[in-house]
């Protein structure tokens, strides 16, 4: 048995507070009625429970929803206290960072897993629970509410009227005339007025009651958009570095697109060239200190054919483009954004072969740091051989010169110099500001003659087909918010009881505005303006409270 019978004969689902048909409140006191969901029963209040019903009931509870939201809030807040693991500075060792930097607190933080809050399974579980709760709470309430409002009767039980916040009994001699007057005024105020046995129900702004649900639909679409990101091909966020002169494959394009960087331009504001009115602002920070432009002049290529990886691809030029901040290069759903840069990276060293005694110079030779040659012939009889090259030089544990990485951060060379004067060759170890001669006194040395540098651009490679879903979700969210905030659901019941006229009023928010409207409507009539039963009891002005769904 899951229904019960009201005295009017209507069968109501269990949990109903106000009879769906006649409006009789099912409790026996005289407090003001709670009009939440029109006193209907939530759909999940069922006696016979299967496991599905139990899960459903759990998520349909607003109290549970609030608890989940609170836990998520607290977890998010805790997650911002210390830096997250994936956002640590690149030099930090994540395993010791928390202990070393924050002591015991950091250790506990790390141990609790808060160092990885936002990527953790439990955080994702919380977010998903909010999503599930959103769907089920909404469904559970909107369906009965919609039915109740659609089927509402004009004539309501007297107890229903009595227990509305605005209520008054008046008596008049010419009921018909007075009611018609009020009815006309209500219609002028854009109320929809229905009549039944001489009783009136005036209603407007019911549409406002759907606001929260429209809002929830927007949220659900938004969450769905976030889920879409994980579907392969929908979302991509990668990065690439290109040095001037280099051509690199665009990651995530399956090798079908390549980008060549011609020039990276970094400009600052200079008082000499800018309009005089900016002088003060520029000098406040310092001349040449405020960035003006980050620009990568590139050419986009498309690969022709389907070469085996490792084979040199054949490229066809697509277009030239200048990538600036907020002006990405877009092709095939992919956007390349300017996000980072490195200036003056060492790419080549020049040396002169120098006779130490006479100071006579031979050369220069240019050593390309990413592709050095083995032999540099200067002129007949004069040559320099590269014996070893350490792009990122340091002394290893054995005390030998070695390289830390393959990047030319601190290049060092072992040269063998041969001249007619030194036909056996002389060996020298050359690093930045170092010149070591293992065999004692050399006659010749490699004299530093210049440095060539290039700039690099850091581009982010983005693809996002979920944006339109997020926008639609966001727009619906806003529509729902506006709908619920700026419209009011107002109802007035006017009922004839013998010689008396009973008037009751309800609005889901802004009783102050409602009363102002009613004052005008009942002005100069025999029907008295309904009294605010809350205000009379508390004698305080409560303009906008008592918001109910």
């Amino acid at each position, binding site marked *: 048995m899951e229904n019960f019978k009201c005295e009017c004969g209507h069968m109501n689902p269990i949990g109903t507070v106000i009879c769906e048909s006649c409006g009789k409140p099912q409790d026996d006191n005289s407090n003001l009625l709670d009009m939440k969901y029109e006193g209907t029963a939530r759909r999940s209040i069922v006696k016979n429970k299967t496991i599905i019903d139990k899960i459903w009931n759990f998520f349909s509870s607003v109290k549970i929803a609030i608890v989940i939201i609170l836990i998520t809030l607290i977890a998010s807040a805790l997650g911002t206290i210390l830096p997250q693991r994936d956002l640590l500075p690149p030099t930090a060792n994540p395993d010791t960072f928390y202990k070393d930097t924050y002591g015991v607190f950091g250790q506990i933080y790390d141990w609790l897993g808060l160092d990885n809050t936002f*990527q953790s*399974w439990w955080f994702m579980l919380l977010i998903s629970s909010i999503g599930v709760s959103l*769907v089920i709470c909404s469904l559970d309430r909107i369906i009965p509410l919609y039915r109740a409002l659609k089927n509402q009767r004009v004539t309501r039980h007297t107890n229903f009227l009595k227990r509305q916040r605005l209520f008054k009994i008046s008596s008049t001699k010419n009921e018909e005339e007075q009611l018609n007057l009020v009815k006309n005024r209500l219609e002028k105020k854009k109320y929809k007025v229905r009549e039944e046995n001489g009783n009136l129900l005036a209603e407007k702004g019911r549409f406002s009651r759907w606001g929260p649900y429209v809002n929830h639909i927007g949220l659900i679409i938004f969450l769905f958009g976030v*889920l879409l990101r994980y579907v392969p091909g929908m979302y991509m966020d990668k990065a690439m570095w290109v040095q001037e002169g280099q051509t690199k*494959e665009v990651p995530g394009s399956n090798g079908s697109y390549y980008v060549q960087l011609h020039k990276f331009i970094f400009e600052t504001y200079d008082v000499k060239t800018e309009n005089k009115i900016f002088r003060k602002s520029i000098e406040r920070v310092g001349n040449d200190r405020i960035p003006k432009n980050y620009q990568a002049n590139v050419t986009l290529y498309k690969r022709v054919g389907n070469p085996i990886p490792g084979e040199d691809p054949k490229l066809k030029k697509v277009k030239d483009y200048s990538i600036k901040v907020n002006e990405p290069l877009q092709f095939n759903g992919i956007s390349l954004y300017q996000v980072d840069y490195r200036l003056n990276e060492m790419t080549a060293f020049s040396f002169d072969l120098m006779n130490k005694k006479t100071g006579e110079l031979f050369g220069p030779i240019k050593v390309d740091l990413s*592709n*050095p040659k083995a032999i540099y012939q200067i002129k007949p009889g004069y040559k320099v051989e590269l014996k070893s090259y350490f*792009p990122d030089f340091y002394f290893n544990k054995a005390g030998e010169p070695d390289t830390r*990485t*393959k990047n030319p951060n601190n290049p060092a060379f072992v040269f063998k110099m041969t001249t007619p004067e030194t036909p056996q060759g002389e060996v020298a170890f050359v690093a930045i500001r170092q010149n070591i001669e293992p065999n004692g006194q050399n006659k010749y040395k490699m004299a530093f003659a210049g440095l060539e540098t290039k700039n690099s651009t850091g581009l982010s490679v983005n693809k996002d087909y979920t944006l339109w879903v997020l926008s639609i979700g966001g727009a619906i969210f806003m529509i729902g918010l506006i709908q619920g905030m700026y419209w009011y659901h107002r109802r007035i019941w006017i009922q004839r009881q013998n010689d008396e006229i009973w008037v009751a009023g309800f609005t889901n928010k802004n009783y102050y505005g409602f009363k102002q409207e009613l004052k005008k409507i009942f002005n100069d009539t025999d029907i008295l303006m309904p009294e605010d039963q809350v205000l009379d009891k508390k004698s305080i002005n409560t303009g906008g409270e008592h918001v109910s769904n």
Partner: protein
Amino acid sequence: MKKNRLIVRTAILAILIAAIGYTFYINFFKKDEVIAVNDNAINFEIKDINTKKTYTLSDQKGKGVVINFWGSWCDPCKHEMPFINKVYQEYKDRGIQILALNANESPFVVSKFVSDYGLTFPVGIDKDQNILDLYGVGPLPTTFFVSPNGKIKRIKIGEMTEESFREYVKEILPN
């Protein structure tokens, strides 16, 4: 009516659980490895730094192939090279091919490394690390062992010992 409600609820819950389950699977259970054991090895070609001869993986069918990704600055790679060279000498006539891919260093550094260590198997430069990315290699060294049928038998991340390397090579010996 009651039955319908149960069906509708079950359907809605099923959709929600499917969506969440999918997200969890992608985020927490799906391996990031681009290539897994038993996959077909992705084809590629390299040019041997010394002989300038081109080696294509697909041409090695019928042979067991060891693909070794290395860099001259990586100490474990340096430890491995002598015994890889030794084991190659033992097994090269029994159908084992070794292809070593350097992670985009300069030809000078790579040829010096090859001659310093006296390497006898083909060593090529993986320009821009395209093949390395294709194989989803993280740390160096990483070694793939490919069976004669072209399927990946084993992926070894990090330094090997001579014994373990010899065992792995035996696993992919052609009959």
